[in-house]
């Protein structure tokens, strides 16, 4: 029996023909289950490279469904042994899937990445750190010098995180009226100070975009990348009992 590649679960037992080609060489198809539907395709074991091309092919299927349905997207490259395993998974998690579909009805996810001038942030911090070198103890041995470097490092890191936190607060303040929930990662890299996912009502998408434009206007020292609408990848909560 063929393995099954999963794309997502929708809140309907009726779906139009799916035109997106999908990740595998097999066309995505629809499987009704009670009052919900599963989108999957047969998987013959072909190599699925972890690259943007394939990630986007996965998302294209979900995006097509999003236009008419509430979609719980499944992570890229989720493959089950067979349809029977898929049925077990859906049966076991049916109640939670339903709760998520209700919670995420008419909602979508927007992504907002922010890059800051990390060199300037470092410069602001480094002047304070010079004073720290002479505090706490006399670094007169290699072991103490090592710990002193660690002290400087953690102090620097804390200050950088505090600066990042201020930017996060600024963002949340501007966007809180137009989003329901957010998941924000700070300093995913030194340059990327904020990598945020925002759950919004589809109806306020334009307002959300306007608010981001306002943020751009008022924070010329930051660079913004706005993306979406996406299916709410970051806001699904499935407990594993």
């Amino acid at each position, binding site marked *: 029996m063929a393995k099954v590649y999963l794309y997502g679960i929708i809140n309907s037992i009726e779906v139009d023909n799916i035109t997106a080609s999908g990740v595998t060489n097999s066309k995505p198809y629809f499987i009704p289950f009670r009052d919900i539907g599963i989108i999957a395709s047969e998987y013959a074991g072909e190599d699925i490279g*972890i*690259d*943007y091309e394939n*990630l*986007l092919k996965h*998302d*294209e299927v979900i*995006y097509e469904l999003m236009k008419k349905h509430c979609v719980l997207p499944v992570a890229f*490259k989720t493959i089950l042994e067979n349809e029977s395993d898929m049925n077990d998974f859906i049966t076991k998690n049916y109640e939670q899937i339903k709760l998520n579909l209700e919670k995420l009805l008419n909602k979508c996810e927007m992504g907002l*990445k922010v*890059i800051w001038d990390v060199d300037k942030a470092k410069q602001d911090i480094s002047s304070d750190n010079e004073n720290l070198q002479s505090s*706490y*103890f*006399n670094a007169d*041995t*290699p*072991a*103490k*010098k*090592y*710990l002193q470097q*660690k*002290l400087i490092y*953690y102090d620097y890191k804390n200050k950088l995180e505090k600066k990042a936190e201020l930017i996060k607060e600024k963002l949340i303040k501007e966007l809180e009226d137009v989003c329901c929930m957010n*998941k924000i*990662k700070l300093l*995913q*890299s030194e*340059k*990327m100070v904020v990598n945020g996912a925002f759950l919004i009502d589809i109806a306020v998408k334009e307002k959300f*975009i306007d608010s981001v434009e306002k943020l*751009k206007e008022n924070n010329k020292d930051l*660079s*913004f*990348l*706005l*993306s*979406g*609408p*996406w299916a709410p990848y970051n806001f699904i*909560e499935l407990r594993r009992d």
Partner: protein
Amino acid sequence: MDASRISVDESCTDLFTEEAKLEKNSIADRINANPENAEQGLAKLVLTVIELLRRLMEKQAIRRIENGSLTEDEIEEMGLTFIKLEEKMEELKKVFDLENEDLNLDLGPLGDLM
């Protein structure tokens, strides 16, 4: 993909492209496990846990230094211990061909371990 789903000022495109490449690498690292590299996968997991403990101990030591609760001798001893621990970690990373960036775990909704 529908191009209208991405909005970025032209002047910042290079910045984000560079960051996207870093993200892409981290995706590959996270998922690309197979029988051939299972040993390295296990080493990665174990070393990540050790690195987490090492950092926790280090932070605790820093807190105690900042609070002034350690004598000069205790600071010396701790410094030596951490140097040795770091050296040992470097050795193990070399053995299993791992970089600092490899020593992390994606905990899903909880975010990254470190």
